[in-house]
């Protein structure tokens, strides 16, 4: 890792562990990783190895059984309102898109801003701009059921960006897409990362997808197997 390229750590874990069923199942055990601002990290591993669990912990969707998580220098355990934390710093992209089927594309992107500070019209305008930038100018009023997989994932990307997050957490973002749409989505993610200096942490089991990342972390049976350093 070149400290000049990635000077600031954004997420750091110390002996992070996640156990279920009274420690009978160890989804994660003794994870120690540091992710730097602006990095594109892929977490790879076989099915059930704990990569999605790690992503959930980083995204504050779950609480660890033991160990510590830090966002910049703040411990996750000291954060009073995790929802607010997620809203301010994290954007999620899911394999199944998870768009709300009864909302239009525009409303899906606006949804995370409801009850947030700021004018609803401003949020709407920003959402519109994001969708236009992602090539969905003609799809603003369309419902997810009437859109292709690629279009839906682009709406999900816009939704992840609406609150200007510091990190994008993507769980198998191309898992439901064909190769053309998958490439398109990855290009968009990379483009946004470079323009906005976002950190991208992506879970995938697809080597062709993980190859796009600058660093790959291999997880197996809840432990870090090995790390591949960034390719410059």
């Amino acid at each position, binding site marked *: 890792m070149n400290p000049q390229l990635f000077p600031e750590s954004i997420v750091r874990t110390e002996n992070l562990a996640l156990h279920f069923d009274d420690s009978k199942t160890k989804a994660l055990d003794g994870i120690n990783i540091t992710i730097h601002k602006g990095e594109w990290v892929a977490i790879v591993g076989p099915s059930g190895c704990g990569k999605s669990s790690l992503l959930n912990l980083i995204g504050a969707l779950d609480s660890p059984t033991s160990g510590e998580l830090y966002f910049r220098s703040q411990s996750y355990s000291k954060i009073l309102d995790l*929802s607010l934390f*997620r809203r301010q710093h994290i954007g999620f992209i*899911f394999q199944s898109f*998870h768009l709300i089927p009864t909302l239009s594309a525009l409303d899906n992107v606006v949804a*995370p801003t409801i*009850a947030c500070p700021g004018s609803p019209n401003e949020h709407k305008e920003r959402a519109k701009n994001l969708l236009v930038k992602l090539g969905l100018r003609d799809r603003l009023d369309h419902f997810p059921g009437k859109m292709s997989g690629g279009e839906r994932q682009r709406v999900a990307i816009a939704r992840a960006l609406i609150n200007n997050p510091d990190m994008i957490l993507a769980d198998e973002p191309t898992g439901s897409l064909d190769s053309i749409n998958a490439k398109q989505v990855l290009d968009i993610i990379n483009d946004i990362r470079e323009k906005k200096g976002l950190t991208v942490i992506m879970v995938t089991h697809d080597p062709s997808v993980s190859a796009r990342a600058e660093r790959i972390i291999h997880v197996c049976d809840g432990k870090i197997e090995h790390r591949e350093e960034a390719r410059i």
Partner: protein
Amino acid sequence: MNVLSFALNNLYHRPARTSLTVSAISLGIAAVVALTSISWGFEASWQKANDARGTDLIVTRVASENAMPSAFLAAKYVQPLKNQAHVQEVVGLLSEMLSVSDNAPPVFVFGWAYGSYLWKHLRLVKGYWPSNDTEPVVVIGSLAAELLHKDSGDKIEIEGRQFQITGIFESSAVVENGALLMTLTQAQQVTDKLGKVNVLNIKMDGRASDADIESFKAHVRKMMPGFVAITSGELVSNNTIVRISKAMSHVTILIASLVGTLVVFNTMLMSITERKKDIGVLLALGWQQRTVMKLIFCESVVLTLIGGCIGILVGIVMTFGLEHMDLMRGKIDAVFSVPFLGAVLGLSVIIGIGGGLYPALKAARMRPSHALRCE
């Protein structure tokens, strides 16, 4: 978009469930509106009749389960009551519920002292008033005329005697509009209750204070055992039928509230179970727990408010329908006041909050990671 528009959108996209829930709430609210307005209206109608006549208090036997208090000889009480401070007039009244024709339901027949102030508030729309105390004549309320298909100049049989209808009148009190009116002497003769009345109307002078009225009431309690001086509304409110009617409306309110809350509870619980993934996504994207709760409460309260508004309309229509039924005509005068309807809407909101409380808490406390794993 805001929480309310999001909630409305959710309800709009589940039309079957929304309309079923709204229907259930509206039926319950309609029943509450109809029964409560009728039971209040019955009391209010008698009170209105007294207020319209200008009577301040009535003296009557303590009524038990009878529809009207039993008749008593008026003569020995009139003068002693007139001698009380601030009492301007003491006028007897006899009323009975009698069937006056074979096919019609029973109607009120009032006997008012001839020439007394009781007659002054009525408006004669046709014919003429009784001109003396001895003629077997009767005037009929406009509603009663319609119900009995009678007109001025017709004859009518009351307790085996033929009476001439000399006129048709209107009164601001529905209970009088649906009644037949004759002089007290004629009423006493036809019911064989010579010299008897069941109510003495007391008119006080304008200088009587509340304390004077209380003093009069106390005097009656002391000097006339078994009698009471009360307002007409109080008399009717002690009536068993009115008490049962009010109790029924209270029970209906309770049952409608419970059923409404359960219906909303069930609807919202099913709704959040179906939308577990959506709620999980919103929580993951940064929605706070209180925003999720606001959304669920918005949906439940909108459901019950719409149901409440429709229920009020249906209840009003139902009540008008009942008022115009032959059996009930002239007997009920439903009361719809703005505060009452406001209270009904308030009840709808409470039902919405009550029914939505547990589902809102459950939704807010969802763990996003678990919710997102749901199919």
